[in-house]
């Protein structure tokens, strides 16, 4: 039996979402066609859009369907940067944090080569944005800020960002705020209208929906410049033939996840706290990273991020995998080479410590027995990984850059 503790990477599809999706797969109809089949497809898409709007408290017209989180982040950041700068060429700054997902950081890095001035405001040791530094960054020259992008909750260490304060500061100067809420949806209460954010990234496969579909919720007054040009679908912000089966599955997952959020969060907090307590009991020198407070303003309910001093994270992952326990080292690059996490480095961790961490993330199918299996396995796995790290370390004095032990 696989013990799946990597729900933050992707979570199993909900049976009701799979049913809604598969019910549509055999049907024909381009949602842009004018005939009856086209109208049927369009109706399904619009009903799905309305369902998502109800679940997230936005207007249906504010839901722009995309291929998922990465596209939504790119659309929000590049699109809003371009449209805001074309309105006023002084708007070249983008304020963000160094702990964003690569789907945010890499577009920012790319925009920096296209004339953007990217300002990543520091986070504290828990990974939370330094709100005073953020206010100072905005107020130093508010007229030059094109947009602000700050994630709702961090995908690696689970820290929840002070989005309401970010919005308050930015809106005092008329600056739009985008947030990547991919991890937050389904785990934390989300309300687009009440949050005040102008654009929000959500995706299907993190909440029990299908892969390859997501949305950018984008306030009606804002018109981000399109990344994809073509048939003019989705308010002309995102051209491309609409995918009714995926959208139907996504909508059901979204409704279900939001309806069950409170109950799920409570259950996951219980399981997660048991997991952390169990691991710390078995491995007393392990360190619980991120915000130790469990509440919705502090940490994602399903996130447990732990550091195991003296171990390589990828050794731990491999040894757990061999025992059927699946987790993550936090971030991976294209070739699968483990890199030290940029999130932990931004939180002040050293490269060596950053490489000795694991993320366990719980979700809607997690059980007590998953937690029990991990707690049972962790001590011998850590001991073995420590031995491996000791025995493969270069002998003292042999290394031109000195002994890094």
């Amino acid at each position: 039996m696989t013990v799946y503790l990597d729900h933050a990477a992707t979570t199993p599809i909900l049976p009701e979402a799979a049913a809604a999706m598969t019910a549509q797969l055999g049907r024909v109809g381009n949602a842009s066609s004018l005939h009856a089949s086209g109208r049927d497809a369009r109706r399904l898409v619009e009903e799905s859009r309305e369902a998502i709007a109800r679940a997230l408290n936005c207007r249906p017209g504010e839901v722009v369907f995309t291929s998922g989180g990465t596209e939504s982040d790119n659309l929000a950041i590049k699109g809003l940067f371009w449209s805001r700068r074309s309105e006023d060429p002084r708007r070249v700054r983008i304020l963000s944090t160094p702990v964003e997902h690569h789907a945010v950081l890499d577009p920012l890095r790319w925009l920096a080569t296209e004339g953007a001035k990217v300002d990543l405001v520091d986070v504290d040791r828990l990974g939370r944005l330094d709100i005073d530094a953020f206010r100072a960054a905005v107020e130093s020259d508010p007229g030059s800020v094109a947009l602000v992008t700050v994630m709702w909750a961090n995908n690696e260490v689970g820290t929840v960002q002070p989005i309401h304060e970010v919005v308050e500061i930015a809106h005092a100067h008329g600056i739009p705020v985008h947030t990547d809420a991919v991890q937050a949806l389904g785990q934390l209460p989300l309300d687009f209208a009440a949050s005040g954010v102008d654009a929000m990234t959500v995706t299907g496969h993190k909440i029990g929906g299908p892969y390859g579909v997501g949305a950018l919720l984008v306030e009606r007054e804002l018109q981000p410049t399109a990344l994809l040009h073509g048939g003019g679908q989705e308010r002309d912000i995102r051209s491309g033939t609409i995918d009714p089966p995926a959208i139907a599955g996504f909508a059901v997952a979204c409704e279900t996840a939001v309806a069950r959020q409170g109950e799920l969060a409570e259950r996951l907090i219980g399981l997660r706290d048991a997991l952390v307590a169990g691991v710390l009991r078995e491995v007393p020198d392990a360190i619980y990273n991120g915000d130790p407070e469990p509440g919705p303003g502090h940490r994602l309910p399903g996130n447990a991020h732990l550091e195991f001093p003296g171990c390589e994270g990828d050794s731990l992952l491999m040894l757990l995998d061999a025992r059927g326990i699946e987790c993550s080292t936090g971030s991976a690059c294209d070739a699968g080479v483990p890199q030290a996490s940029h999130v932990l480095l931004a939180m002040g961790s050293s490269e060596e410590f950053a490489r000795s961490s694991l993320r366990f993330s719980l979700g809607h199918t997690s059980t007590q027995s998953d937690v029990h299996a991990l707690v049972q396995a962790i001590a011998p796995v850590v001991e073995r990984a420590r031995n491996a790290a000791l025995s493969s370390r270069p002998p003292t004095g042999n290394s031109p850059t000195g002994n890094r032990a």
Partner: protein
Amino acid sequence: MRVLAAMSGGVDSAVAAARAAERGHEVTGIHLALSRNPKSYRTGARGCCTIEDANDARRAADVIGIPFYVWDMSERFHEDVVEDFLSEYAEGRTPNPCVRCNEKIKFAAVLDRAIGLGFDAVVTGHYAQLRTGSGGLIEMHRAEDMSKDQSYVLGVLTQDQLAHSMFPLGDTPKSVIREEAARRGLAVAAKPDSHDICFISDGDTGGWLADKLTAEHGDVNRGGPIVDDSGEVLGEHVGSWRYTIGQRRGLRLGTPAADGRPRYVLDIEPVSGTVTVGPRSALAVDRLEAIRPRWCGTPPATGARLECSVQLRAHGE
């Protein structure tokens, strides 16, 4: 046994892993990421350090049905292989980085980590054969396919390293390995063999050395004279690292030798940058000195006379 298969993304290591799995071992595949800045695609026959090679290794592991991971060994590789390669050239020697990589990375850092993680052995696609000789000593023998024999680059391994090594290809010719790979459905069956030095992506070793040595060792090794054995200056060169003893090609000497016969590099003197050339006959030696002996079998009695033949380089005469 629980074995770790080092998979470069090439055909040999893929078949080696498949054979180990077929023999009933519990095999885990790993690809070593050795480059700090991997290129996306292979260029020509070089290297095993690209993302494409990592993907080829991953697909081979899928077909064999074994778990697969990438291990980042780029830091160790840079320190133990690349830096050593540079300093050897700076000393006027011609190093073999594959020997060094086997000695310090594959059968040291990787093997040690594997043992620490609970594996019993490392399996690779090298062409060599291991047999247990008298008194339990592990002997390394040449591969069945002499044209592919790699016992030279494995000759540095100790008994302890050999005891935890498996070379399942040593008894088979390369052509058969390719057929076997195709039969097993491994997409790398027709992938070209890798030659040259994996960390020099464009294959221009001279240019690469010029850049690195100038950057890291100052200009101690810049140009100098090419002289004959009487000391007469025959030409100039732009860096003594471009030469290796016994080299004939690429000397670009304007005037031919008096006897019209080809000339060879006889000596490299890195401090003055002097490269000495001369006739083939001057290359003949009747004496060889070796350091750090490793006996891939029973060691000879101390002080006793030993009849043997000598292999000086991985390939060639």
